[in-house]
């Protein structure tokens, strides 16, 4: 027996290899054992309930096709997100990729392996016949019209991806624990400030509720904080609050008048001294997020999602900030112990004595980009390509997306699709005004400068002044560095567009009837001019600032 011990690993390897080979062979053999076309789709969403929802939608699609005299089999492959990038690359290069895949972020892979869907999304979705979305182009049925950067590739000038949901960040709460706190004698009077289900509807009432939770914890000698949050999910929430305070500032410094943040032009205004972290509106934004941060555990900005979830599941936090996609997972963690509900954390109103003066109004979430990124492989046979597109049309039809939402508890990606009552608080708030200037501009280096001293901002002993003292100069310097370093990339993009324009122009000359290429040519010219004009303007500012 002992003589086999050194070979234990090898034996295990052989057994595992044979096992996986048999499983894979059987699965593959099953796929190709009949004449029924098989559509496979791969994604990396392993959240609770999602795979079951996709399976159910796939079965409904198969049944619908069968009713129309067409047989099809849809097979789902869920791949962990950690290995999805390498897995998808292997599949694509090996020629074994599924017909529908969540898209890679690499433009070259996209251009090479995926079918542009621009023409398809410009036509109506046939599954929307006899629904409120009948007659609309498929793209128009999505919340963003498939125009946001995640769904329209501005470099390749095509729609490649079909989203199936929309992601929002909300405050989830333990409804039984919250009811206990509100009904406890130490919280007397708080009920009048809350809605019928004890959630706050104004920023002031949210802060009052947090104070009540702390009093309750102290009175009952509990380790309990009002709000659990992690560095990733809290950032989205805190950004929304911070940008509520720079709405009017954006209006003031927006020289061109497009009322949307332009990182380049906003940065120039900062370098010219039109605004800084010292500007009252920016300072108020920092005060506001400090107020919210103080309701979370000390050091929350260093916590991962799992830490926050642990706090919440262990009932050491009454509320938790996270994405709508976590709703089913949170409830499954809570089990029978408590019910999880959600509310949108209310922003200060324009009548707020301190914060209202900086605001245009409620920050709208209309700019939110639907998510899903399912693309269709190109180079596969026409029948499979058509079926793959039909499956995506079904998944994102009025009825299909509504059913998907019911089954998964994820939000629909379309306009006007009704949702379950429990999902209503998670829906994006489309009413309102554009957000103001975001300090981090979604740039990793800028975010790093801002977060390096977060402990000063969110420490009970710290202050906004201390934070600005620690960060102010570094922030300005980093904006300068980022803006001017970005020039090289911008120039490279404009140069790439020279070649795109030349190719598209040549194609229109070779085939003047080709209107699609004419439109694409127009798109690149519009995009290139915007980039080139800003490139030169920033160069001009660089010269002026150097003088």
């Amino acid at each position, binding site marked *: 027996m002992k003589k086999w011990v050194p070979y234990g690993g090898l034996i295990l390897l052989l057994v595992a290899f044979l096992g996986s080979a048999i499983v894979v062979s059987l699965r593959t053999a099953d796929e190709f054992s009949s004449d029924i076309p098989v559509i496979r789709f791969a994604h990396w969403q392993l959240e609770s309930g999602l795979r079951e929802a996709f399976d159910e939608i796939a079965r409904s699609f198969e049944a619908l096709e069968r009713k129309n005299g067409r047989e099809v089999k849809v097979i789902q492959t869920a791949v962990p997100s950690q290995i999805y990038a390498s897995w998808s690359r*292997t599949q694509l290069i090996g020629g*074994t990729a599924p017909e529908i895949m969540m898209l890679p972020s690499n433009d070259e892979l996209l251009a090479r392996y995926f079918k542009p869907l621009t023409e398809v999304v410009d036509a109506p979705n046939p599954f929307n016949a006899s629904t409120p979305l009948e007659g609309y182009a498929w793209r128009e049925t999505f*919340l963003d019209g498939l125009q946001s950067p995640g769904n329209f590739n501005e470099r390749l000038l095509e729609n490649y991806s079909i989203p199936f949901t929309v992601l929002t960040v909300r405050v989830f709460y333990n409804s039984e624990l919250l009811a206990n706190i509100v009904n406890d004698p130490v919280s007397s009077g708080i009920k009048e400030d809350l809605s019928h289900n004890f959630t706050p509807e104004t920023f002031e009432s949210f802060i009052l509720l947090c104070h009540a939770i702390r009093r309750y914890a102290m009175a009952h000698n509990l380790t309990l904080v009002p709000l659990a949050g992690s560095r990733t999910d809290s950032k989205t929430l805190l950004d929304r609050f911070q940008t509520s305070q720079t709405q009017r500032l954006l209006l003031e410094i927006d020289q061109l*008048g497009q009322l949307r943040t332009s990182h380049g032009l906003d940065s120039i205004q900062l370098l010219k001294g039109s605004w800084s972290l010292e500007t009252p509106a920016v300072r108020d934004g920092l005060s506001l997020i400090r107020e919210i941060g103080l309701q979370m555990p000390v050091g929350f900005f260093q916590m991962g999602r799992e830490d926050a979830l642990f706090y919440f599941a262990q009932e050491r936090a009454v509320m938790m900030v996270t994405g709508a996609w976590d709703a089913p997972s949170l409830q499954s963690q809570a089990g029978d112990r408590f019910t999880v509900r959600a509310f949108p954390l209310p922003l200060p109103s324009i009548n707020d004595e301190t914060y209202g003066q900086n605001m245009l109004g409620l920050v709208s979430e209309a700019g939110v980009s639907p998510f899903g990124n399912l693309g269709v492989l190109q180079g596969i046979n026409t029948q499979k390509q058509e079926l793959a597109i039909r499956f995506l049309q079904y998944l994102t039809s009025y009825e299909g997306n509504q059913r998907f939402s019911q089954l998964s508890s994820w939000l629909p990606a379309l306009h006007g699709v009704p949702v379950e009552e429990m999902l209503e608080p998670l829906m994006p708030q489309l009413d309102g005004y554009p957000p103001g200037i975001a300090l981090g501009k979604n740039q990793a280096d800028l975010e790093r400068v801002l977060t390096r001293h977060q402990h000063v901002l969110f420490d009970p002993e710290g202050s906004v002044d201390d934070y600005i003292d620690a960060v102010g100069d570094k922030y300005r310097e980093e904006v300068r560095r980022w803006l001017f370093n970005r020039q090289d990339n911008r120039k490279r993009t404009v*140069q790439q567009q020279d070649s795109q324009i030349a190719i598209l122009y040549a194609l229109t000359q070779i085939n003047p009837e080709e209107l699609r290429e004419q439109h694409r040519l127009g798109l690149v010219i519009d995009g290139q*001019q915007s980039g080139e004009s800003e490139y030169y303007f920033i160069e001009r500012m660089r010269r002026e600032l150097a003088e």
Partner: protein
Amino acid sequence: MRSVSIAVAHQLGLLVLFTVSACSPDAGERTSSKIQPAELGWELASRSLFAQAIPYFEKALEHNVVQDRAWLEFGRAVCLLNRQPRSGASIEEALGEFMRLSQSDVSGLRSAAVFFVWRINDFYLETSNDHSDQRYANVIIDAGDVSFYNQFGKLKYATKHLMLFSNGSDDTTKELLESSAAITDNSLARNFERIVGEFLVLTEGLPDEGWVRFANAERLGFDQIRLKRDVLLIVARQAERAGEHDIAQAYYARFAKEYPRDVRTKWATDQVARLQGMLQ
């Protein structure tokens, strides 16, 4: 050891999957052998896969294609210019090709090649930082040439001069501000008007002249939806700054009507009501 064994087994499993799938009935359909090299070259290049397109253009040229041969050479040169990874040698090679093609007698191609010779020197190699030498204006831009690339060159020249060099009163600026009629191609004309508008607003602080140029651009219509929306709002806000409240109100109203789901619509609607109050 166990985890290593499982990991290796997983990889071997993938290998089996690959092998089985490669033998599948439709695996062969994924690579098309029916498409001609020239077609494939254009297709890849139109998707910005420039490096991948070059061998197909070369293959097509090797096959002594007579028809569109000059355009194939142009396509290859354009791909060389921006292939990844970039190299000075391929830019130089592209420049040589464009110089050769600038002698071509194919309609539209000559001015395209001439444009690229100037563009590479001006924007890639930056062989001269002295924009005032007017080499492009005097030599490359031919007033009688109405080709796309001649107009494209004017647009590029105007963009650089106005946004980078202009002091607002130099002769070139005056000339450029009056030369919009020389650009007739719609996609170039609208962008020329927009660039002039940006110059007037951003560097000269002249909303009264700026809004008119943005309105001209808007009338010509953009392909990019984001620009379509932005320009409507820019006209409205610059017109308002210039005191043209009725015009501003009309543009805010158009924005709200045409883009009811935009994040800025509520604000635009507020402005319509506010200006209406002021006008009454």
